[in-house]
């Protein structure tokens, strides 16, 4: 099996029409005559570039943003500022990776903000009452709380045969209500939490905060599973065409529950990271976060109707949104612009997505490919 088809269907099968051959001779001419003929990997790279256009767009936007902000105020590139951006990105990226998994299957999980709150409050309460609890256990408990919420979402979507939008809108209310009911207005403060846990929120390994390392681990593992493993490919297949996936023998129901479980578990994990970073947790933790998470995923090039996109893009989207927030502060622009910019970016991203799709369809038609 060549890697090419894998690559192609990860960003929509209809993109396979881009021209890998046209650029190949130039590339071959550049290497010495003694070199081997171009390998498929080399010949694929211009195609790759086209397919990754959306990720590339985010990287360019990010680079531009950082360059402009840094030239107007050098404080922006100070260690502390970068650390803040990375910590903020870590939490949002963990959520966005989970959301991307669900969105790729043509579903959506609006309950992630509430799940983050429930998990943060659960772990905060546990740590307050049992200060000896190891951090690893806290992370696992948080992920488990979230995983249960996600599995409930998945079961409701699967067996209730109802759209994920409605189900997760309902559980958004329910989970938040449960957290409020349980917390009853109380708040967990940093001085009630064991210092070991708070240290974990601030500690670094070779200068990289632990939270960032955890986020990177989540990103890499999820990315590899989605791209290279059968389970991952099946999620893309479900998103492209649920009916075809079912006919192809994919157990769509089980995969749906699994995808929601992953999203919930990652939201729960993000809750623990949230608690470790901020130290102060109340029942409102993570309120409204679902909007930022969906924004990160959409800006990161994951199509809302499933079947395409990558967790790398989603994580880049999270990085871009977080960076915009701190750039505005540094540039002394009214913070209120941030939400408007997020909205504008979503519209821009889905508009660009449509444009790319339309151009690809047009080029396929011109080449006489089988596209209806």
């Amino acid at each position, binding site marked *: 099996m060549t890697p090419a088809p894998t690559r192609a269907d990860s960003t929509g099968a209809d993109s396979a029409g881009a021209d890998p051959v046209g650029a190949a001779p130039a590339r071959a001419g550049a290497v010495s005559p003694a070199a081997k003929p171009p390998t498929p990997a080399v010949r694929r790279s211009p195609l790759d570039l086209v397919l990754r256009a959306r990720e590339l767009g985010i990287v360019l936007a990010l680079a531009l943003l950082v360059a402009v902000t840094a030239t107007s105020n050098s404080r922006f590139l100070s260690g502390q500022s970068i650390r803040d951006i990375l910590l903020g990105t870590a939490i949002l990226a963990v959520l966005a990776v989970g959301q991307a998994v669900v969105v790729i299957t043509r579903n959506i999980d609006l309950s992630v903000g509430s799940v983050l709150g429930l998990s943060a409050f659960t772990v905060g309460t546990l740590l307050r009452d049992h200060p000896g609890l190891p951090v690893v256990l806290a992370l696992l408990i948080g992920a488990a709380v979230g995983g249960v919420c996600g599995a409930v979402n998945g079961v409701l979507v699967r067996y209730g045969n*109802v759209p994920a939008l409605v189900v997760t809108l309902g559980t958004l209310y329910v989970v938040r*209500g449960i957290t409020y009911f349980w917390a009853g207005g109380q708040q967990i403060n940093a001085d009630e939490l064991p210092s070991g846990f708070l240290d974990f929120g601030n500690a670094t390994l070779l200068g990289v905060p632990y939270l960032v390392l955890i986020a990177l681990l989540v990103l890499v593992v999820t990315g590899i599973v989605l791209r290279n493993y059968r389970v991952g490919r099946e999620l893309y297949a479900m998103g492209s065409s649920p009916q075809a996936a079912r006919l192809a023998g994919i157990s769509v129901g089980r995969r749906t529950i699994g995808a929601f479980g992953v999203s919930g578990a990652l939201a729960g994990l993000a809750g623990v990271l949230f608690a470790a970073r901020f130290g102060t947790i109340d029942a409102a933790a993570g309120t409204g976060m679902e909007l930022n998470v969906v924004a990160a995923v959409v800006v990161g090039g994951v199509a809302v109707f499933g079947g395409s996109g990558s967790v790398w893009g989603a994580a880049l989207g999270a990085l871009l949104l977080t960076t915009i927030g701190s750039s505005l502060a540094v540039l002394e622009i009214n913070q209120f612009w941030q939400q408007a910019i997020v*909205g504008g970016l979503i519209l821009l991203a889905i508009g660009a997505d449509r444009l790319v799709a339309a151009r690809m369809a047009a080029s396929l038609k011109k080449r006489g490919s089988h596209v209806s």
Partner: protein
Amino acid sequence: MSAETAVESRTAGLTARFANWNVAIIAVTIIVLIVAAATVENFGTSQNFGFLVLDLLPIALVALPMTLVIVTGEIDLSVASTLGLCSAVMGSLWNSNQPIETIIPLCLLLGAVLGAVNGFFVTVLGLPSLAVTIGTLALYRGLAFVVLGDSAVADFPVQYTDWVTGNIAGTSIPNVLLIIVVLAIVFGVLLHATPIGRAVFAVGASEQAARFAGVRPGRLKFWLYVVSGLVSGLAGILWTLRYSSARADNGAGLELAVVAAVLLGGVSIFGGKGALPGVIAGVVLLASLQNALRLSDVSNEALNVVTGVLLIVSVLAPNLANAVRSSVQRRRHRTTNPL
């Protein structure tokens, strides 16, 4: 044997009737109202009736166009942000000493324009409405904060604020109930008794078939978004006058309550199915349950659980009823044709 089939056919009849969500939701709403009036202190008072109507005013208004939008198979999540932006602009215009008589039409126009922006993205560019309106949800709310920051504008003219919170002279019927009733009748007639309404259902059932039948789905949806924005703008004006406070975060999160009420009212999220009486009942049910629980000292936040459970049950119940019905029918089929 014959007794058994009689029981079965009766259950089949019952489930069939229950599958008619409209009737069921209206019945449930009436039961809730009666039980609440009998058991919850102060629920049945005329003063509480006024509060109830004012509380359900924004949800009821926005739910009317939202019903039509969802019946066509689309969604508009930006309604609450439109409300907030209109409220913020109203406040900032009032701050710059414009007369209220020019502010109100301007804000209505603004609402319509914001709706047209949604309509443009959804119908002209052909983008998914869920993503578009999540984007404009953030955009409009952000613009509201850009316009007004986190300050509040008060001191709107007393005759306007009094009219919104007041009753019809000599009665205990709130003035704003008139607006709700008139708009509900307009939208009800539009949806259920005009060619436009039939086109709305047709587009929701099958856009392609509707196109072959001479409907222009794009144009229809565009105007539905405009109307949705317009009504959201009206809700923003009434919200501002009711609390005599223009704030950028007015109505935050209302879109979820509206979608919940509409789906509770039996409108299918997939489009093509739904009726306005059910939606009105859904709005009343949601608002009166919250009102009754609040009177019984249940915390505001815990009410979220009720809203969420209601929403999930409302989408699960028809499917469950269908499943039960078809299994009953299958069993009956087996008993009558023993093969």
